[in-house]
């Protein structure tokens, strides 16, 4: 069921410079690339997003999910290229028509049953505890942390985007903005040792309203200067220094980034209408920043956007259609904007979420589980396929550790490593980004060109 594995093997065999070598020269990249992480807070019930559509597999799904199952006749059929043409082996949730179109047109793929792992894990190994496991499985913040940091049992507080930004920091020295930008607050994903992510709002940064860097602005200029000197003073407490550092970054970036967003708006380059709401608004702002990448002298960017509400312990059947429609419409609009900007090959969007959810119901909802399905979208995605191994959705089956909690068959490290390699991280440094990748036979899942 794996697509493009031959191409992946070829790429993996290509020797690359290590970043230790590259940092010495600090050679700039000769192209622009961006990764956009769409984090679905709460744990997306992705076995209702991507559903088996063949008779036996659908029946196993329906038997497990009972009152939470999507009717087979409602599924939006899809045709992954690794399967027999016309067999329609999978279907999407009926709310995801835009994603269906993206998939069928070759701009989107799925990575099936992915999740945090330290090494390949079978059900027997799980119960005999004969393999190392990520700590605190099924806990929200711990499993978010695993997806975002890939730290396994290490104590590290950096995220895999943060480590990528650190690795390339000398190659992107001229950038006017940090490599990592968040539109959804502080996050582990972009946390780093050497570089600092820049946090803006859903529509971009706020300008300090009553200060100016224009020497002609009179009292507002003077006030800005005074404010800056106060921020830059020596402080005795680590807390004062920590607070002042944020203020300094805010002052340094706001005007530049706001000007870039305004330039994109003035250019009229983006006509795509984004869905209203948090995710659509964030992705629209990301599109504007990408449109102004030259003005900002950006070569590599990693954006963090997110939306919540996926912790469907209750009322899942009422809430899931809206949640999934929002993902589908927002990501499709964003992809359309990248096509308008003629950068679709340089931008890759992907989802992550705390965990998949139990196949069994708690009456009107589901609980925390483990493996789940992720979406990857972009012109450089080897589209219209399903990567990894889609499990049999059977209670008590080989992949179920209880209640329909699927053991991941693809690790989050493999998922991240594949994206990192496309982003420009040499193969020899992938274990810095994805620390457990050497534990898995397939370092590159093959879903990126």
């Amino acid at each position, binding site marked *: 069921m794996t697509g493009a594995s031959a191409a992946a093997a070829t790429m993996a065999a290509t020797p690359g410079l290590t970043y230790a070598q590259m940092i010495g020269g600090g050679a700039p990249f000769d192209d622009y690339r961006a990764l956009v992480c769409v984090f679905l807070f709460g744990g997306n019930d992705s076995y209702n997003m991507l559903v088996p559509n063949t008779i036996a597999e659908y029946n196993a799904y329906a038997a497990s999910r009972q009152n939470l199952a999507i009717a087979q006749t409602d599924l939006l059929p899809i045709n992954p290229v690794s399967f027999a043409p016309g067999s329609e082996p999978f279907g999407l949730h009926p709310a995801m028509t835009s994603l269906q179109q993206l998939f069928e047109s070759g701009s989107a793929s799925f990575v099936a049953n992915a999740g945090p792992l330290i090494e390949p894990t079978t059900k027997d190994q799980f119960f005999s505890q004969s393999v190392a496991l990520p700590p605190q*499985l099924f806990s929200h913040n711990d499993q978010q942390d695993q997806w975002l940091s890939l730290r396994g049992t290490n104590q590290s507080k950096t995220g895999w985007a943060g480590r990528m930004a650190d690795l390339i920091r000398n190659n992107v020295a001229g950038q006017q903005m940090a490599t990592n930008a968040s539109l959804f607050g502080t996050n582990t994903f972009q946390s780093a040792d050497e570089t600092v992510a820049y946090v803006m*709002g859903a529509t971009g940064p706020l300008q300090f309203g009553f200060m100016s860097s224009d020497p002609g602005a009179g009292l507002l200029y003077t006030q800005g200067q005074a404010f800056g000197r106060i921020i830059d003073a020596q402080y005795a407490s680590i807390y004062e220094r920590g607070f002042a550092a944020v203020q300094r970054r805010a002052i340094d970036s706001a005007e530049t980034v706001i000007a870039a967003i305004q330039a994109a708006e003035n250019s009229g380059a983006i006509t795509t209408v984004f869905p209203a709401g948090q995710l659509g608004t964030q992705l629209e702002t990301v599109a504007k920043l990408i449109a102004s990448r030259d003005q900002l002298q950006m070569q590599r960017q990693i954006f963090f956007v997110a939306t919540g509400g996926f912790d469907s312990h209750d009322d899942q059947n009422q809430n899931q259609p809206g949640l999934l429609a929002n993902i589908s419409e927002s990501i499709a609009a964003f992809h359309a904007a990248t096509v308008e900007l003629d950068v679709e090959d340089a931008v890759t969007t992907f989802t992550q979420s705390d965990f998949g959810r139990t196949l069994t119901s708690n009456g009107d909802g589901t609980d925390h589980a483990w493996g789940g399905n992720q979406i990857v979208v972009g012109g450089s995605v080897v589209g219209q396929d399903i990567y990894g191994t889609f499990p049999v959705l059977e209670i008590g089956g080989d992949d179920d550790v209880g209640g329909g909690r699927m053991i991941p068959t693809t690790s989050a490290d493999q998922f991240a490593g594949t994206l990192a390699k496309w982003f420009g991280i040499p193969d020899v440094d992938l274990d810095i980004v994805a620390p457990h990748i050497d534990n898995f036979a397939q370092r590159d899942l093959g879903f990126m060109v």
Partner: protein
Amino acid sequence: MKTRLISLAASLLFGIAGCGGGSGGSSQPPPPPVPITKAEAYQFLNQSTFGATEAEAQRVINMRYEAWIDDQLQQAASLQLPHVQSVPPPQFMFQLQPDRVDIWFRNVLHSDDQLRQRVAFALSEIMVVSQLGVLGDQPYALASYYDVLARNAFGNYRELIEEVTLHPAMGVYLSMLGNEKPDPVRNIRPDENYARELMQLFSIGLVELNQDGSVRLDAQEQPIPTYDQAIIEGFAHVYTGWTYAGAPVFQGAFPTPTRQVIPMQLWPQFHDTGEKTLLNGVTLPAGQTGDQDLADALDNIFNHPNVGPFIAIRLIQRLVTSNPSPDYVSRVAGVFNDNGAGVRGDLGAVVKAILLDAEAQPALRMELDGKVKEPLLRLTQLWRNYDAQSVSGRYPYDFAYIIFGQGPLQSPSVFNFFSPFYAPPGEIRDSGLVAPELEIATEFLNTYITNYMFCQTFFWNQESSPDCGPITDDTVLIDTTEEIAVAGDADALIDMVAGKLVAGQISTTLRTEISGMLALIPAEQANLRAAEAIYLLVTSPEYAYQQ
């Protein structure tokens, strides 16, 4: 400031050294206690109220710390629900949220039970429910829930978690309400949401702790999980059978104003009566009632040795410092374990132990003492000192979480506005320390708050001006009349502002910069001069720091 404190500490040390060698037997009365300084009173009040003021500092100086705390422990709770219920019901319930937030501000700004309100706020950041999400249209439930926290702030933790568990706000938020026993035919098993979060976030955490809060390690030097999936499922089965009191159906009943505020009611036919695996090898026998199961399960959690250090760390972090020493945690956890009268879980004694500990009032300041002030506390301290009021008398700041990154019962999730483990990159993380409040001190929110403070100080004062948007009867205005009276004298103005907000402990840099700006503003623009002084102070790193 640093120099002054160091020399003060040195003189104290000399004094102690000079008394060394005495071995009792003296019949002389003890020397009078060293007077509490205004700066010390401010430090104490910023730990124990919604912002130190000169008047309250004088009370602390007069009463001294312990008597002040004892007085506070006796103050009755200022409640929210009676106020929310007194407002004529609007067309849609969510429209009452501004009134709920309004009474929160009225209480924390003006009520006498300052310490109780501060601890209730801390508890609301530990045992989180939120307006954002499923409770958006249940303002009565939220007000009533907050009242539970306020009433039990100095009560017993065991009673607190029982009231929290059975409150319909929590029932809705973490989906225990309507949780039914297993039905294998429909592949239905009990909801695990509340089972998980009560243990992870409200009581014991994920790994076993020593009394000093350090993580216990097994023979392989690995942390020891406090529970596994079987235990989660055991508790999930305990929490079956509960729904709104007086509901006509077990699931799907409408949350009437009455149902929102009455403890959940047991429907025995939906309660699982099987055996249940709990913590520490305890198994509940089959056949117990839902009430028995719940009482036994909460006892089981309550008696876990983690609760003392877990609650000690979280309350210390909310009130005093982000990085308490292990000894400090151990002392406070010891009081949780036994208040001196053999009682476990006495929160009043715990709060008192936290505030009276030497580490809460260190004579020689260390650079890691204290914490970043929560953004909402930066606002309330300003408002308390400048008699902030609206024409209508209301504080309908239900948008607080947008500007300040936090508001009363406005967390984005059960994980609170920030994590107790958050460590920003740089020296804090590199030193193995944490600064939870900095998780929401983003570039974006810091700018938002800075801009808000500009509007508050320059335009939303007694000479209100619409330059920051329309002034309405609900616009909260500060009163800078006293500052305006002395505004012609820059030093007097700065002394007054710094005296009110930071007990006069203003850095040379900040004083110099404020003076420089005042030199550019003509003396007749007294309102502008007063605003400038307050603005630069309340947006400064030193004001954002709670010593």
